[in-house]
C-alpha cells in the first residue's frame, strides 16, 4: 500500500488465473455440478428468458423516416405495448435499440455510445433498408453509413422502406423467439470450461 489508503476489500473474487467470475456465475457453476443440477439451471434460464422476452423495453430513438412508422407501430392501431414493448427515454433502462432510419457518419459514434450505455442483455433491431445496408443511399453518397452493423451488432434485420408497422412487430416477435432460445447461463459455463481445462 504505497498510497497509504485503506485496504480495498474486493467484492468479487478474482481467481489467480485472471478470468473474472461473478458470484452468480459461481453459484450456477456449483448448481450445475449437483446431481440433477443441469435441469435446474435450464429451468432457471427458461424462467429468465420468459421474463425477458415479454418485456423488451426499447429506447425511444428515431433517426429518419422509419421512425415515423415506428411511432405508428407504438400508436393506436398496432399498439406495440401489447408485447410488453414500452419505450424508455434513456439507454440505461432499455434492452433494445431499434435503429429506425439512416445513420450518418456524424451520427455513428452517438449510436455506438448509446448502445454501449445500455445494460446487458441488449438487443438491436435494424429497421428499414437504410439501417440494414444504406439502402436508397448506398450509391453516389458520401455521408450515410453503409449499414448500422458496421457500428453495432444487429440481431434482427427488418427489410422495407419503410417497413409496415406489422413488419416491425414481426421483427420484435422474431427477437422474442431468439431470446426464448437463448442460453446465457450455460453458454458462459461452456466458455469457462475450456479455459479452466
Amino acid at each position: 500500500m504505497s498510497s497509504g489508503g485503506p485496504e480495498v476489500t474486493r467484492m468479487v473474487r478474482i481467481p489467480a488465473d485472471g478470468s473474472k467470475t461473478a458470484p452468480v456465475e459461481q453459484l450456477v457453476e456449483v448448481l450445475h455440478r449437483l446431481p440433477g443440477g443441469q435441469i435446474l439451471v435450464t429451468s432457471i434460464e427458461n424462467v429468465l428468458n420468459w421474463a425477458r422476452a415479454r418485456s423488451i423495453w426499447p429506447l425511444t430513438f428515431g433517426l429518419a423516416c422509419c421512425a415515423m412508422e415506428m411511432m405508428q407501430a407504438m400508436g393506436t392501431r398496432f399498439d406495440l405495448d401489447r408485447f410488453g414493448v414500452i419505450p424508455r427515454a434513456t439507454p440505461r433502462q432499455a434492452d433494445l435499440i431499434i435503429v429506425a432510419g439512416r445513420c450518418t457518419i456524424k451520427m455513428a459514434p452517438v449510436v455506438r455510445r448509446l448502445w454501449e450505455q445500455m445494460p446487458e442483455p441488449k438487443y438491436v433491431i435494424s429497421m428499414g433498408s437504410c439501417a440494414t445496408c444504406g439502402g436508397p443511399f448506398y450509391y453516389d453518397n458520401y455521408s450515410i453509413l453503409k449499414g448500422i452493423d458496421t457500428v453495432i451488432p444487429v440481431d434482427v434485420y427488418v427489410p422495407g422502406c419503410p417497413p409496415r408497422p406489422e413488419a416491425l412487430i414481426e421483427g420484435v416477435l422474431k427477437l422474442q423467439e431468439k431470446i426464448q432460445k437463448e442460453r446465457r447461463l450455460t453458454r458462459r459455463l461452456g466458455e469457462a470450461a475450456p479455459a479452466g481445462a
Partner: protein
Amino acid sequence: MPSLLQRTAQAVQGLVTGLGVTFQNLARPKVTLMYPLEKSNVSPRWHGLLALPVDTETGNDKCIICFQCERICPSRCIHIEATGKGKERVLTRFDIEMDKCQYCGLCVEVCPTEAIVFTPHYEASTYNRANLLYTLEDLHRAAPKEPVARGILR
C-alpha cells in the same frame, strides 16, 4: 390571478369535460388490430416484396430479359445476367437485394411483360442480412424466405 375557488371550479370543469370524452370513447369500436392473430388486408397496390411469379401455362416466368428494370432501379439492386442469343436467351442470374431495395415500384412500372410484380408479403425479417438477397428461385416462389415469426405466442 383568479381566486382559489375559481381555479378549483375551472379544474373540476376540465376534469368533467375530459372524463366525458373518455367515456364517449369507451363506447366506440376498438381500433387496435391484434396483429399476429389477425392481419389487415393490404391494398392490391401495396408495395411488398418483389417477385417473378411463374406462369402456369408455360411453367416459366414472363421475363424477356430486356434489362429495363435493372436500368431504372434507383437503388441499383437488381442484377441480371443472361446467356444465349435471340429467342434462346435464358436467365442465368436474376438477383434482387431486398435490403437495398426502396420499394419504389419503378421496376414494376417499366417492365413490358409484367414479369416483375409486387407481392402482398411484407414480413421478411431475418437474423442474417445475407438472407435478404433474393435469387431467381426465391423470386419464383413469390414468398418470404423464412417462415413468419409467431413470437412466444404459439
